[in-house]
């Protein structure tokens, strides 16, 4: 018998596959394709204290082996989420992680306080969104700034706290250590890479904000390296993210030190991709005689 369960901060995931924030909405669209209860967990679309309409202009742009996005945290706000989306998610029998973004420390703290009183299982603090002005990523570049926001949120937060790191951090290992020192219970990494594209005919940037976020298989080797480095430097559970589109990618991240993984852009090319990854992991475990993923976690 194989055991795919993972326990992260006293929260039990039935398997290590989590839908990544911003690629899965609040689950409704994907629930038409498979029962969400098959997933280890769902990280919600990034939530901000107030509702946001998101960015103008082109929002997505394909590039070699991935895509650039500049959605800009379009979301119903914390209260809209609690009222409109959470009742649906509560019924899905999977771990619900509320992904929280913000522009100021006060916003983060207020958002987390509102979520304390709900049934969500965990909070994933987004200090890594490159697509809103002063939004999130400003906190995710310098370790000292991140320490400040994570400390304040930690004081206010009654739920297990995952901090989602930006690969754009000045030094990913120092950033990780700083967030753990500030009270992060777990880390997830990586968010999208700051990137851009230019329309050579119009001689203008593709995106109104010029800079957008790069994701997809093209970032996987770098994300994997960052997970590897961070997992050796800190003692908290790591959730690996970055271009995972099949079970082999997922196993690589686990071997590099991840306790669980998130599937992001892959959801766009196949709504059932997480299910295929879960089944692939199970088959791999059977074929390789792995009883528990702990046996291969961080073996590199």
């Amino acid at each position, binding site marked *: 018998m194989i055991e795919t369960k993972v326990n992260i901060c006293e929260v039990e995931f039935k398997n290590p596959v989590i839908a990544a924030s*911003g*690629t*899965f*909405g609040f689950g*409704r*669209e*994907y629930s*038409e*394709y*498979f*029962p969400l209860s098959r997933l280890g967990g769902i990280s919600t*679309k990034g939530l901000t204290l107030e509702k946001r*309409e*998101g960015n103008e202009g*082109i*929002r*997505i*742009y*394909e*590039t*070699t*082996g*991935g*895509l650039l*996005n500049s*959605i800009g945290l*379009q979301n119903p706000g914390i209260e809209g989420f609690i009222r409109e989306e959470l009742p649906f998610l509560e019924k899905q029998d999977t771990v619900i992680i509320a992904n929280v973004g913000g522009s100021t420390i006060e916003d983060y703290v207020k958002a987390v306080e509102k979520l304390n009183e709900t049934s969500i299982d965990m909070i994933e603090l987004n200090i890594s969104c490159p697509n809103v002005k002063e939004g999130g990523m400003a906190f995710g570049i310098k370790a000292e700034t991140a320490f400040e926001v994570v400390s304040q949120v930690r004081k206010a937060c009654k739920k297990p706290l995952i901090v989602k790191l930006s690969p754009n951090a000045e030094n990913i290992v120092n950033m990780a250590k700083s967030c753990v020192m500030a009270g992060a219970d777990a880390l997830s990494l990586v968010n999208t890479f700051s990137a851009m594209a230019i329309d050579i005919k119009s001689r203008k940037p593709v995106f109104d904000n010029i800079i957008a976020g790069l994701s*997809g*298989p093209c970032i996987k080797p770098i994300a994997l390296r960052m997970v590897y480095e961070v997992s050796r430097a800190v003692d908290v559970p790591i959730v690996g993210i970055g271009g995972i*589109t099949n079970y082999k990618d997922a196993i690589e991240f686990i071997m590099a030190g991840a306790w669980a993984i998130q599937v992001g*852009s892959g*959801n*766009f*090319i*196949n*709504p*059932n991709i997480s299910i295929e990854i879960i089944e692939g992991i199970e088959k791999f475990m059977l074929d390789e005689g792995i009883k528990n993923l702990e046996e291969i976690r961080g073996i590199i």
Partner: protein
Amino acid sequence: MKAGYRKAIVNTNAEIASNIFEIKLSYPKDENFQGQPGQFYMLKAWEALDPFLPRPLSISNIVGDTITFLYEVKGRGTQFISKLHPGHTLELLGPLGNGFDLNIEGNIAIISGGIGIAPMIYLMKSLNKKVDFYCGFRDEAYYIDEIKGYVDSVFVSTENGSLGHKGFITDIFTPEKYDVIFTCGPLAMMEKVWSMCKGKKVYMSMENRMACGIGACLGCTIKTRYGIKRVCKEGPVFSGEEVFFYD
């Protein structure tokens, strides 16, 4: 539960005008395609991860067990699809989106610009009513013969004058004759149509860059009178007054 991506087989894939292709597909087993006029499918003709995203194409027709897509080669994805030969397979997800409202009364006009003609064959067939068709093209007209069997009158324009009226299709469109207008094409054309048709029912099929096609990524949103809407989910068909709400 809905099915995810499914394999289909290419029956034909022909260039019917410069850079305009018509592809016909069937499922490997005797199974029919689902879908209403105005709905679309996401298509992937590649197993590898580059190109990465599937491409949205609206249904041009469904006859028996065969689905037809008319498409313009615009980027790497459509170029890839255009190179497929009979017997090749690709993967499809759909039908997606809302489709046109078919429960309508009154005199009907369909107005297309360029590749916006793609969803209109299936619409005409499904309406099964008296319809006048206005189709505008830049240089080269296509699909005119296919349309003729289904409509009462066809009006054609080309910007270079190679067929029909020389100029824009909106130059020869006479809105006073119609109660309901369906349109698909460049945004500027649809805006002109809407401005000519105030007080009438105008249904327009929008397009946008899409990643997931199912409403999750929020990449294809547009601003409407009633807030931000997803072209792939609340659309692609919107009413004119929803889209052009600024006056």
